[in-house]
């Protein structure tokens, strides 16, 4: 399935919990903000949001990574644009 992963750099404080849980999807840039990768690669220029194709297991782990963020700076949407996390 495809998920739209987005980091809000204004909220991100570089706590790096997401990098610890999902390093293939999140890394920190020079400004100490998390950016989004596609399975460890950057097919397009560096970005705070990306649509990536994931397995059910990867999706669970991405939700865990988003949940671990102390500032809730990570947003996850499904293909239809429905926000999966944070719960509204």
């Amino acid at each position: 399935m495809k998920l739209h992963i987005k980091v809000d750099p204004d909220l991100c404080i570089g706590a790096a919990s997401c990098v610890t849980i999902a390093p293939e999807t999140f890394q920190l840039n020079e400004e100490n903000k998390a950016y989004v990768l596609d399975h460890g690669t950057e097919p397009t220029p560096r970005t705070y949001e990306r649509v990536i194709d994931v397995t059910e297991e990867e999706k669970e782990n991405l939700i865990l990574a988003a949940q671990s963020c102390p500032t809730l700076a990570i947003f996850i949407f499904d293909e239809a644009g429905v926000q999966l996390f944070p719960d509204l």
Partner: protein
Amino acid sequence: MRYVIVGGGVAGTTAAEALRKRDAKSEITLVSEEHHPLYSRVLLPHYLKGKVPRERVFLKKEAWYGQQQIEWLTGIACEHLDPRNQFVGLTDGRELPYDRLLVATGGEVRTVDADLRGVSYLRTLDDADHLAQILCEQPADARAVIFGGGFIACEYLNLFSHFRLPTTLFHRGAHFWTRSLGEEAGALIAKHLTERGVELHTRTQFVNLLGESELTGVVTSQGEHAAHLLGVGIGTSPDFSWLKAAGVDVGAGVRTNAFLETNIPHVYAAGDIAEFFDEIVGRHIQAGNWMNAMSQGRAAAHIMSGEREPFHLVSSYATNALGLEIIFVGDTLKDAADEVRVLGSVHALGVTQIFVRQGRVVGGVLIGRNQDRAAITKAIQEQKTASEFEIC
């Protein structure tokens, strides 16, 4: 199985959630001193600056506890532990039997011995609500004072700067984080703050407050400082009395092995209160950060429900002080290191300290040098020897 978790913060709540995920039937009780559902303390400064609305600081809704069939007791603390008969006594008089007990009560904020309207702390949501209120009440010529030299002092600096309050900061040490930083790193922070208009007083003791019912000033060993607001961030000291009375081994925190087990059978600890044996760095450490608390809560749940997996995490915390990026990774206690290597300088506007023990990289503090983070984290994780490790 009956699980009792004492402490409703991120460690305790994550443990409850992880236990329920693995086990639909066990009884889980979460004892919380606060009345709020789980919220992010890290978001409190964002809330105070108006970057997120208050409702956004919550990580769980009140209904969540019931949906998860987690018995959630609020406004209650634990005051007694009977390890032989396996029950805890609560402040409301109840006694709760347990098969597995997790202590995740965090720390109590250290206070100054005086109180007036205008004095604030920044740990809980109630503290933040109180601070939001007094920030609203300030006159146009208000002045702020900060007492402290750590993470909370940084939050106050950013907050008071956001509200354009002229700020004086004092602390007892020669510079920020005296247990971790050396002179060069300390000097860099001091230079950054003073250049941005902060009046800084080091090696300064708190003496008293001035004012009748409202704060008008703070007396320190350096003299009197006019102040309408005082932000106090001088660390935490947990209440260990009920644990010590039960024979739980307590050092700087509740001592555990690498499986988060205390010396008392079936009693575990996680989060800020735990002083756990960290196999990666090879000694007991206490890591007072979000990443550690959440990960230990989850790990404790797995271990309590029968998995035999030691807790391994190189945790870190990042903040900034008026725009200067500050990152702590791994074991950053100077006294526990054999050697502290310093890269960069005040002049270069960036200082990194690398902590080495028994020839291995065990920790790092990065001031204005974010670029070193990944390499240092990896070196600690992979238990690299200091000689294998080269950054410049």
